[in-house]
């Protein structure tokens, strides 16, 4: 694997390989000594043009557990705020000997530009670009669903027939897009539930069903409900009348959780707006996977860095992504 830019371009075999390696990484994290020497001497740069705490520290933890050196580069207070271009920043990192660049950017497609422009030879991992994709989040969500359903028997299994409901601001959500592609590649049936103002204009090409009524979707007893964060920083237009109304119609409160079958999962990528899209008791209930998602995120990112940074610097059997 040369880069990880999106989940749309992942085949089922590629996705399962990442998830299976993540299983092995998760196993090593229960040992006495959690640190592995695997990526000793490799340098991973976290290049974050957008604020993020959990994704950045998750990548940092993953790289450090594999003994890679980590350089954190936040755009705020750096040369970028002085007007440096993406190209110059990238080439600076290249000159410092970066083997992998984990990039988050507010512009959709920035990681692809970095990967295909020829500016750098390092492997590129998309850690969220604009409203496009956030592939490692989707991989950790799929990993979490698989782990809860199949336990120790998860390896090499897909999510065939698993019904997943994704609720919230699909329009702005890269998490929703990445999950949509990955989950359907793995065989899951995806339903999007969203206010009509927060769905992209044309979703006919998406492998998903769209509903506007959360109660209708929950009544079908889905295996997992994934709540998206209402990104207040992106709510610059009047997408819904008030937070209170949003919460009442599309928020997951205890009454709605009660409707779900006993083994359905409640998922949230974090950070949560408690009381807005998810109520405190839904977030803290035993069916909530919020903290597992965080722990699994480290294992999945270890797997991605491992697959990116080992092997000869050429395309292995996973093949080149488009």
């Amino acid at each position: 694997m040369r880069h990880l830019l999106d989940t749309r371009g992942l085949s089922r075999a590629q996705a399962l390989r990442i998830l299976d390696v993540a299983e092995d990484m998760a196993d090593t994290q229960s040992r006495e000594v959690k640190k592995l020497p695997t990526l000793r001497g490799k340098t991973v740069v976290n290049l974050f043009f957008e604020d993020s705490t959990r994704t950045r520290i998750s990548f940092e933890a993953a790289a450090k557990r594999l003994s890679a050196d980590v350089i954190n580069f936040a755009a705020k207070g750096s040369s970028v705020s002085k007007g440096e271009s993406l190209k110059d920043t990238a080439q600076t990192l290249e000159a410092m000997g970066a083997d992998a660049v984990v990039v988050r950017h507010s512009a959709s497609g920035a990681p692809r530009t970095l990967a295909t422009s020829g500016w750098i030879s390092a492997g590129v991992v998309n850690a969220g670009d604009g409203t496009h994709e956030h592939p490692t989040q989707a991989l950790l969500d799929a990993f979490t669903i698989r782990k809860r359903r199949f336990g120790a028997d998860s390896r090499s299994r897909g999510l065939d027939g698993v019904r997943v409901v994704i609720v919230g601001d699909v329009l702005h959500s890269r998490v929703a897009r990445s999950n949509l592609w990955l989950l359907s590649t793995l065989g899951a049936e995806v339903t999007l539930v969203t206010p009509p103002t927060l769905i992209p204009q044309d979703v006919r090409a998406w492998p998903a069903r769209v509903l506007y009524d959360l109660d209708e979707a929950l009544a079908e007893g889905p295996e997992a409900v994934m709540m998206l964060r209402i990104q207040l920083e992106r709510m610059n237009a009047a997408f819904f009348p008030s937070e209170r109304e949003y919460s009442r119609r599309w928020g997951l409160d205890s009454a709605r959780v009660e409707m779900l079958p006993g083994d359905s999962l409640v998922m949230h990528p974090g950070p949560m707006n408690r009381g807005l899209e998810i109520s405190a008791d839904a977030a803290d209930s035993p069916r909530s996977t919020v903290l597992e998602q965080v722990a699994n995120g480290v294992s999945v990112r270890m797997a991605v860095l491992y697959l990116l940074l080992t092997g000869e610097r050429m395309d292995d059997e996973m093949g080149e992504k488009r």
Partner: protein
Amino acid sequence: MSTRIVLHEADITRALTRIAHEILESNRGAENLVLLGIPTRGATLAERLAPIIGSIAQVEVPVGALDVTLFRDDLARNPTRSPQPTHIPDGGIDGRTVVLVDDVLFSGRSIRAALDALQAVGRPAAVRLAILVDRGHRELPIRPDFVGKNIPSSRQERVNVRLREVDGEELVSIEEAR
């Protein structure tokens, strides 16, 4: 390219039985023994060896698998390998005599990685090495304690161990260099 069979099914079975006796002899019984096979075929051999030792000594011998992929020093020189599951038997390895089991001993680099991997799991009292085939060409100061068969080979040859559980047939062969 020609292939020559050097061990047949009966030879492999005999070699494992002899190794089982040798392990018991050098350990003075089965006390404190833990067998850890290196995936894929080393793990299979360990799974076979444990009941043989167990039936001779009339005890159950703990057996597991120890993956060494993440501890290798040649990850950047080969196509990406997928790690295999590690399984440490209940009771762990602290203070026990661990016998590492692998199919072929060649450069010794897998075993070096295995010693590092063991360190991450615990602190055994002693580590021994049991090997089905020793083909020579060591690159590190590592030697086996128990050997099924020494097969002198040239570096260009390939030694293939095929086991029923993994490959559907049971033999050890040498493929000559082209």
